[in-house]
């Protein structure tokens, strides 16, 4: 894979790739690698520093931090993928519709995009959480809503450029159906910038979800989201720094990794998309 | 090499470092500018004339890798000066009019501010009000009406011709000994160009310093300059008093340049004259006469580089045919 090779060549891309792989493999292999069950409570060993049994220490209920961290990966990455995939789907759908639809429909869709994206993402998420309530599913739904406009706009812009190209006219003249044009020609052309955007989005989703969980309005304990681990750990910060350190560390590793990887991917696919700094 | 020359350039060679290797932009250039003389530097793009102009100001680009020879201003070698000393000279004894007035002026400052700041080196003791007054007077002198309004205007609010007049005003306000005009009309329309040329002619009568006028147009040079130096690929191939050079162009390149100038008597449908071939590679400079590859009159002696040979008093050309 030529792209992977290009990513490997840049130092930051290399770091990103390694970090991302660590995180993803860690999450996938969690049931195999974890030393304990993530929700296994052991009050006697609460808030203890790293030891032979608990490699990264324990939280306030004696749960093993290493294992919770690993399982947290599944939630972080899982939510990020779910959100990105759904937002992609809805965004592309709305974007393409907006490109083909009559003006009033297009206006409405664009207006919705504008309003949603005029909110700072956290604020919007908070407003939605206030209405929907916390919980894993709700978080996925509302974070998806936050990110739909970005994908929608790009999808629409790309579709508009493609739409008028002469070869499509030719296809239509030859009797190709609308859906064939859509799937065969339009979609493949949208893929490039959208893939890049999606990959750069993943760390943002992870950060947003963890942030909401940290504030106590996202994924609630005992589910081992890094955000909720931070939430728990923060309450007991003065007694042990380890819960916070583990959760924060994993978050940083994941966001840094995915960000660097995403940037390297973008540069490898299309350096024209790069913008300083 | 006149004894009382204001500017004396001896054996100046300048290299630039590029990805492909060192570009030998100037190779042993000699030039003399006398007091109150107007010297024209003519050549096509890539001939090195702009590099020469920038070298005079010490404003060579960052990738300059080699500078040898000397540039003497009244005996002092400019190349040996420290940056602070050079800074002291710029805007006082040497001033430059740049080619493209739109990019040469700062877009977020008013004309007035820029004209005032340009004078600070020359008149460090005068206050802003005083400097603005001088600027307004000079704007009138260069043919800009309503100077007060223009002083508060921004560059993008002026037309191309006006901006160039501003640049000329800026240079004149410094009362320099040497004024360098680097293709001042290249970026302008022909009609505006004519106006600017008239302005320069007008100014030059009262201007007490020397002017170095860089251009690719022989026509302009013939109108304005006392002496001409023709440059090709980093070397001076012919130089001398304007009249002599135009009456007896001796280097084949000069002859070709003259032939290329569009003659108003040309019949429509007649082919335009061009010089076949392109500039030689300045990284891997060919030996012998630098123009030989494109010269219609080349012969076997041209594989040796010709020295400057006298055509007439003060008029030299680097060609074996002289």
């Amino acid at each position: 894979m030529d792209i992977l090779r290009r990513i490997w060549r840049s130092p930051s891309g290399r770091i990103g790739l390694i970090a991302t792989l660590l995180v993803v493999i860690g999450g996938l292999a969690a049931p195999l690698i974890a030393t304990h069950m993530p929700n296994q409570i052991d009050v006697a060993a609460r808030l203890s520093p790293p030891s032979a049994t608990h490699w990264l220490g324990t939280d306030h209920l004696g749960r093993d931090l290493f294992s919770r961290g690993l399982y947290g990966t599944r939630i972080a990455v899982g939510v990020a993928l779910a959100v990105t995939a759904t937002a992609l789907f809805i965004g592309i759908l709305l974007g393409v519709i907006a490109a083909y639809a009559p003006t009033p429909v297009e206006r409405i869709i664009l207006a919705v995009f504008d309003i949603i994206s005029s909110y700072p993402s956290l604020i919007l998420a908070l407003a939605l959480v206030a209405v929907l309530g916390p919980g894993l599913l709700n978080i996925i739904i509302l974070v998806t809503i936050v990110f739909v406009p970005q994908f929608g706009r790009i999808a629409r812009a790309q579709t508009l450029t493609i739409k008028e190209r002469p070869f499509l006219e030719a296809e239509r003249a030859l009797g190709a159906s609308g859906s064939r044009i859509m799937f065969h020609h339009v979609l493949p052309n949208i893929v490039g910038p959208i893939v890049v955007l999606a990959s750069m989005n993943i760390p943002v989703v992870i950060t947003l979800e963890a942030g909401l969980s940290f504030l106590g309005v996202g994924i609630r304990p005992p589910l081992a989201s890094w955000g909720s681990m931070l939430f728990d750990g923060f309450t007991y910060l003065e007694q042990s720094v380890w819960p916070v350190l583990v959760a924060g560390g994993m978050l940083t590793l994941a966001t840094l990794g995915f960000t660097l990887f995403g940037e390297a991917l973008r540069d490898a696919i299309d350096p024209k998309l790069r913008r300083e700094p | 090499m006149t004894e009382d020359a204001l500017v004396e350039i001896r054996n100046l060679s300048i290299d630039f470092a590029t990805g492909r290797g060192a570009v030998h932009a100037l190779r042993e250039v000699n030039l003399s500018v006398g007091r109150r003389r107007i010297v024209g530097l003519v050549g096509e793009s890539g001939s090195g004339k702009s590099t020469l102009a920038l070298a005079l100001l010490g404003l060579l680009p960052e990738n300059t890798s080699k500078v040898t020879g000397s540039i003497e201003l009244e005996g002092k070698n400019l190349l040996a000066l420290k940056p602070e000393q050079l800074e002291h000279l710029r805007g006082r004894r040497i001033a430059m009019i740049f080619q493209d007035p739109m990019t040469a002026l700062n877009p977020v400052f008013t004309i007035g501010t820029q004209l005032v700041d340009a004078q600070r080196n020359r008149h460090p003791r005068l206050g802003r009000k005083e400097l603005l007054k001088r600027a307004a007077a000079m704007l009138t002198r260069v043919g800009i009406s309503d100077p007060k309004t223009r002083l508060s205007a921004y560059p993008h609010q002026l037309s191309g011709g006006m901006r160039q007049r501003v640049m000329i005003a800026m240079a004149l306000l410094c009362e320099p000994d040497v004024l360098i005009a680097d293709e001042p009309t290249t970026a302008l329309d022909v009609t505006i160009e004519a106006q600017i040329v008239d302005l320069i002619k007008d100014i030059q009568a009262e201007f007490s310093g020397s002017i170095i006028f860089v251009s690719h147009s022989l026509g302009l040079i013939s109108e304005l300059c006392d002496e001409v130096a023709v440059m090709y690929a980093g070397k001076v191939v012919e130089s001398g008093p304007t009249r002599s050079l135009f009456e007896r162009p001796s280097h084949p390149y000069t002859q070709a340049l003259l032939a290329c100038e569009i003659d108003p008597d040309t019949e429509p449908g007649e082919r335009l004259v061009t010089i076949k071939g392109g500039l030689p590679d300045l990284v891997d400079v060919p030996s012998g006469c630098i123009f030989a590859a494109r010269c219609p009159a080349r012969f076997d002696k041209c594989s040796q580089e010709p020295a400057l040979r006298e055509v007439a008093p003060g008029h030299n050309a680097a060609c074996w045919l002289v």
Partner: protein
Amino acid sequence: MNGFWSKGGLARYGASRLATAVLVLVGSIAFLCSLTLIVPGDPARILLGARATPELVESFRQQMGLDLPLYERVFVFFKHALQGDLGTDVISGRSVTDMVLAALPNTILLAVSAIGLAVLIGIPIGCYAAVRPGSLLDQALAVLSVGLVATPSYVVAILLLYFFSVWLGWFPVLGAGEPGNFLDQLHHLVLPAIALAVGWIGYIARLVRSSLLEVLSEPYIRTARAYGQPERRIVMKYALKLACIPTVAILGVGIGELMGGAVFVEVIFNRPGLGSLVIDAIRVRNYPVVQGCILIIVAIFVLTNLLVDFAYAWLDPRVRENLGRARNGGGA
């Protein structure tokens, strides 16, 4: 300042930006109001949760105008808001307006301090890195800024809190300090402001660095040098003004993120402010308070963007020429 206010164009520009701002605000309110439609089931009962006594449900319904169609609801809300009435707190019955106004100054203080810090530290660092590219500072900046930008802001804030307050004990852990005691309040402000500013410092420094480098290679800088201007004046006066323009632009967009960051910082450092207010309200499902807070936050965001647009026009005379031309997108 030359003709800044004199041209009718600027007034047109101001009017069009203002109009866009108002539209965005109205759109946001409509959006907020329509949110209650998403709730499956009876909004009043669900939003009130366990406290849903029949009287409370009824008064809530009336207050939120849940019986009215959407556009009427927006209209009513707007009317109330303009009169200063943002509803009442579901739990304590206090006026939401009072609560919000009490919390607002704290948040503004925090935000302004953070921006101030970021600008005061970021710009000089960026300048230095541009004038001395490849130096130790420049390289350190390159590495740190990537790391800091990628790390979530709340993680950085928590670590700062731990290191400086819990471990070293240099700064207090909780609160905003004694009211009336300026020094104490300042002491309480330092770490939160730094925590909020940290990511920004790196970003601004990099931005200033790259735009300064670009500006310094422009022809008009060469003209200044050709007239013997000292290098220091060239950088500080000519180049910097231009280089700061992109910085101002991102400040506008970044205010939104700043507000988000402020929420985290207020929660982490236990400071009173809009952030703490809205989080507490969400946790106990106090919807009118949430609505009021979010409205004010969005209003601040829109207002700041408006100010940024004006600052932009003030800094760059070329922009003033493009007055009145509508910019696409409302807000961000």
